[in-house]
């Protein structure tokens, strides 16, 4: 195996493998996880690819320790990632809140599977969309990206690292068994064409007692360990220098608001969508693997003369409400497509319903992607 970070070339590659390649291309040096279907190929590939480039994958005793180790490694200055599926995210939830609280850059890949509970491990559904945002306790913001192809498993993993490092926040890749196990063409560019970001850190030699390493809406420099910054890192309510405060409610208010505002303030830069609804009266809104069926249905509908467009959400959290509103203002009918019982639908509806009719179309069987013919029937129905 070559010790190169970036394996430039054109491949027929599985989504999960492309994700691992993306992580290494982004500069990931540390990964910890626990075996779980349908995410195992990412862990397996990282275990093979990381050591020759000086990193390592560690198989932990559970997902709780996997995310804990990732957070620890991130504070040690490493770009770090964990890979899992829904049950693993459930176990990680407390420590994901910890990562948010102490502003730790890390990437969390969730290759979603049939749920709730043990569910159906090899079947992809989009069942953990809201969990990613609200799984841990308290008000907080994370970033979540939804790839819809193996190429995007590669590209979005790099974007996820860059967002994590820029905003000091956990960034989720919300894939599913369908996209994770899909094999398709993946193009890996030259290393110099891949943009990678590393977190801001305080200037070397800074007086450690005045470093403001936390709670800035403009993202504070991270006082990573081992550099003499004497970082005081606690997930209890704290101030800008990290000092714990367990009695002042204004301090709590600032702690809560700043963590959220840090992401919301930069929502425009974080939001990625794919718009194809110029002149459309009916717009299909979807994300992830389902967007492939939406694109096909839209193209067929246009052939039949229906004015149909699509809006694909790539960034699902922070929720791109402005994009929904902009689209709904131009549309008459919005059809939301998800491979679940309607997890993002209430959010989309809340921003679109003032301007357009909004409806939801689940797949006939949750666990299958919508048949483009079913989407076409729905389009004919709303076009009446």
């Amino acid at each position, binding site marked *: *195996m070559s*010790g190169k970070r970036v394996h430039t070339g054109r491949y027929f590659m599985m989504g999960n493998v492309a994700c691992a390649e993306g992580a290494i291309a982004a500069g990931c040096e*540390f990964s*910890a996880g626990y075996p779980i279907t349908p995410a195992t190929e990412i862990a397996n590939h990282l275990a093979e690819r990381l*050591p*020759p480039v*000086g990193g*390592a994958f*560690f198989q*932990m*005793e*559970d997902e*709780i*320790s996997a995310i*804990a*180790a*990732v*957070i*620890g*490694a*991130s*504070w*040690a*200055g*490493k770009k*770090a990632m964990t890979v899992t599926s829904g049950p693993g995210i459930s176990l990680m939830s*407390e*420590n994901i809140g*910890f990562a948010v609280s102490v502003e730790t850059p890390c990437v969390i890949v969730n290759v979603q599977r049939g749920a709730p509970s043990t569910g159906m491990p090899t079947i992809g559904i989009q069942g953990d969309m809201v969990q990613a945002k609200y799984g841990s306790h308290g008000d907080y913001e994370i970033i979540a990206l939804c790839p819809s192809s193996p190429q995007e498993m590669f590209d979005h993993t790099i974007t996820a690292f860059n967002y994590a490092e820029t905003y000091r926040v956990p960034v989720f890749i919300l894939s599913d068994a369908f996209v994770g196990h899909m094999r398709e063409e993946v193009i890996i560019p030259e290393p110099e064409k891949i943009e990678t970001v590393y977190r801001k850190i305080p200037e070397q030699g800074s007086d450690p*007692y005045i470093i403001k390493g936390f709670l800035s809406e403009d993202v504070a420099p991270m006082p990573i*360990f*081992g550099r*003499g*910054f*004497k*970082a*005081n*890192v*606690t*997930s*209890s309510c704290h101030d800008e*220098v990290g*000092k*714990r405060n367990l009695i002042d409610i204004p301090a709590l208010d600032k702690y809560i608001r700043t963590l959220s505002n840090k992401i919301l303030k930069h929502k425009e830069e974080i939001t990625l969508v794919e718009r194809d609804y110029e002149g459309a009266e009916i717009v299909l809104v979807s994300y992830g693997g389902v967007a492939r069926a939406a694109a096909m249905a839209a193209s067929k509908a246009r052939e039949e003369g229906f004015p149909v467009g699509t809006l694909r959400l790539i960034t699902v959290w922070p929720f791109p409400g402005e994009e929904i509103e902009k689209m709904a203002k131009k549309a008459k009918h919005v059809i939301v497509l998800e491979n679940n019982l309607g997890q993002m639908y209430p959010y989309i509806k809340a921003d679109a319903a003032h301007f357009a009719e909004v409806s939801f179309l689940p797949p006939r069987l949750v666990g299958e992607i919508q048949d483009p013919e079913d989407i076409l029937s729905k389009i004919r129905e709303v076009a009446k």
Partner: protein
Amino acid sequence: MSEIVHPLHRFIRPSVTHNSFCAGCGDGIIVQSILRAIDGLGMEMDDFVFVSGIGCAAWIPSPLFDADVLHTTHGRPIAFAFGVKMGLPDKKVMVVSGDGDLVAIGGNHLIQNARRNVEMVVICSNNGIYGMTGGQAAPTTPMGVKTTTTPYGTYENAFEDVSGLVIAAGASFVARWTTAHPKQLTNSIKKAIQKKGFAFIEVISQCPIQFGRKTGLGSAVGMMEDHKKRSITMKEAKNLSPEERRGKIVVGDLVDIEKPEVLQEVNKIKNKARGGVE
């Protein structure tokens, strides 16, 4: 007239004006023992990263120590420390937490990292009770003791030998002392810091407020005297029957062995993966 400053004060974070420990708590002795060990080895706080969990003892390094400190979630400090150590192999990583944190909610991380034999120091302040939350029974609370969640007395068997658990899991250094043995404890911490492997130190400590007062077992001094009286060496323990050993605290460096350490093994793997020799 010049101000008198404690020689270990330079190890305390300047913004800290007081600690959170109750009068008579054993954690103060553990603080001193750790700092004396670091001082005695001629090391500085910047040589360390401290990691703690939740509970009274977790407040020993956080925010007290003037170093990089990661105060984590309940039960998980060893798992966080694993990531820190892998990212900063040249730093000493020390976990300081209590029996509830390390042995109850975090028990699996304790035994799995002892098994891995990852180089870190884990100091467990074992006071046999959940102090911070108000005196609830812990897995280390002796059977029959009345606590706030066991008003009729605990009805479960207790962990009587936490160190034994860690030895069985494969740690390369394990020592146990009580807070009545501060000098011996300091010496063992020195050895633990220098150990290339998982080093665990159990400190039998007194909680006069939530344990002593509620259980009627006495004051801080009374509890320390009791711990000291019940302490025996490994040599003394060998000559006792299991019956005679009951209630005794076996103190000393219980295990000090050499075995493969995970960081060194990972480095060999990296070399091998690069096409070099193991």
